């Protein structure tokens, strides 16, 4: 038997540790290198149980490897800092309200995606003129350099290296969190605010990467362990590793950077047009606006779609997608087994003429053509709390 694991072991090289590394080891996690960090891929319960716990109760995730940073305008003006960021991303940042979070993408000059990120405008007046950014671990150093190199005078980037990030996700996440964070239950999806967790200062947003209701809790590295242990000790909550994080986000139809989106894919091709505000679509003013506005007007040549194999065999990343005549029309960018779906699920890019739901496809698996069809994403209905 030969393994072809995504999380293959790398010999040599120092791996970074999150502030919660010792907790993962104590819980018996299988640790693997991921984006330069030694991270839990699964705990003893296993990926399927961790996935199911998140869909039916609550899952706890250490996402401290992700990059947290603050963009700050010297003049304390939201418009100043928002305009600076709008030069790099296509989201409407100026129109972002106090205490609200928004998903967007850092774009290159061709409209390709350098990274995807979350942008938050602080709720409190003393945070005016700042924006909180959360970026992907594998991209963070490049993102920081890119952002810093493209800021106007009077706006600066401060990287928060001393913060942990803990996510709690699932239908019981709100009940659990509200027992420790006053006011957490009053937040709606994509709300963000400062607060206290059993008296510890935190910043939390009601968002995540699973398709479920839940929170991401930013806390100082030194206090992370207390919050983790409190939540992990709750019988409604199960610690969840990167393995189930991937199956959860795949079923939720969410992109994984470096797989479903990269420097060659545009937000329009990737089905992320919803994240580009109306004003920005019309005005442009972000990198690659020519391509993106053209794709909005004329339609892109390819589109990211959900793909449901008809049989039981999972179709992995890189699987060739063909039409019913056998001509190659695309590629799977993420694929595997969806525990909630109870079968294989995938997403990938196909020629624009093949992107309609129910379009029949073939997947080339180990030299055979297996039937599949285009399906609407997500594979499972979202559990977000719209407030």
């Amino acid at each position, binding site marked *: *038997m030969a393994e072809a694991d995504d999380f293959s072991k790398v010999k040599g090289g120092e791996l970074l540790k999150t502030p919660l590394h010792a907790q993962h080891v104590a819980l018996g996690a299988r640790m693997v290198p991921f984006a330069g960090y030694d991270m839990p891929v699964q705990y003893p319960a296993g990926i399927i149980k961790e996935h199911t716990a998140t869909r039916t109760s609550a899952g706890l995730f250490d996402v401290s490897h992700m990059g947290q940073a603050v963009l700050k305008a010297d003049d304390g003006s939201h418009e100043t800092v928002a305009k600076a960021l709008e030069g790099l991303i296509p989201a409407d940042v100026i129109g972002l309200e106090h205490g609200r979070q928004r998903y967007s993408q850092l774009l290159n000059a061709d409209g390709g995606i350098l990274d995807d990120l979350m942008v938050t405008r602080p709720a409190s007046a003393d945070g005016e003129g700042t924006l909180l950014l959360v970026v992907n671990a594998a991209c963070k150093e490049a993102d920081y350099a890119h952002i810093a190199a493209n800021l106007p005078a009077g706006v600066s980037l401060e990287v928060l290296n001393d913060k942990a990030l803990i996510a709690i996700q699932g239908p019981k996440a709100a009940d659990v969190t509200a027992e420790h964070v006053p006011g957490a239950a009053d937040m709606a999806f994509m709300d963000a605010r400062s607060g206290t967790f059993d008296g510890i200062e935190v910043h939390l947003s009601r968002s995540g990467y699973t398709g479920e209701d839940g929170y991401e809790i930013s806390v100082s590295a030194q206090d992370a362990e207390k919050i983790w242990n409190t939540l992990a000790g709750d019988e409604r909550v199960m610690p969840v590793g990167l393995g189930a994080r991937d199956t959860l986000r795949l079923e939720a139809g969410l992109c994984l950077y470096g797989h479903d989106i990269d420097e060659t894919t545009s937000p329009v091709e990737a089905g992320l047009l919803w994240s580009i505000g109306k004003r920005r679509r019309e005005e442009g003013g972000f990198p690659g606006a020519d391509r993106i506005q053209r794709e909005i007007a004329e339609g892109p040549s390819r589109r990211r779609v959900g793909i449901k194999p008809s049989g039981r065999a999972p179709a992995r990343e890189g699987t060739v997608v063909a039409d019913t005549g056998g001509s190659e029309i695309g590629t799977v960018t993420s694929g595997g087994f969806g525990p909630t779906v109870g079968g294989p699920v995938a997403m990938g890019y196909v020629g624009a003429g093949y992107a309609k739901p129910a379009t029949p496809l073939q997947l080339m698996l180990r030299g055979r053509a297996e039937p599949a069809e285009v399906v609407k994403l997500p594979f499972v209905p979202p559990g977000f709390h719209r407030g």
Partner: protein
Amino acid sequence: MLRFTKDHEWVKVDGDEATVGITDYAQSQLGDVVYVELPDVGRSVKAGGEAAVVESVKAASEVYAPLTGEVSAVNDALADSPSAVNDDPEGSGWFMKIKLADKSELDGLMDEDAYKAFVDEQ
């Protein structure tokens, strides 16, 4: 007689037929098994050649034929319950039976003690 390969397959020989599966160590390394692809009955397989595919949530892995011969039976029950590979890897989670072409190939496989020592080194 139980024998083991360095690729973490087990072989149980009965006369000139060998039942083949993956070891408990292998299933624990794979994690939750969600799909098994088995060869057609009657197919010729060569020792060390690809014979089946086992897929966990995370990845697909090849399963090699431990011995040369002809596939005489496959475990069709794994189509509906691939988790048998996790729950009972050396029992109901078996993969295939091979009618052996050359029983002397068995000499190249490990016995239980040797395999245990081999796994401890992993």
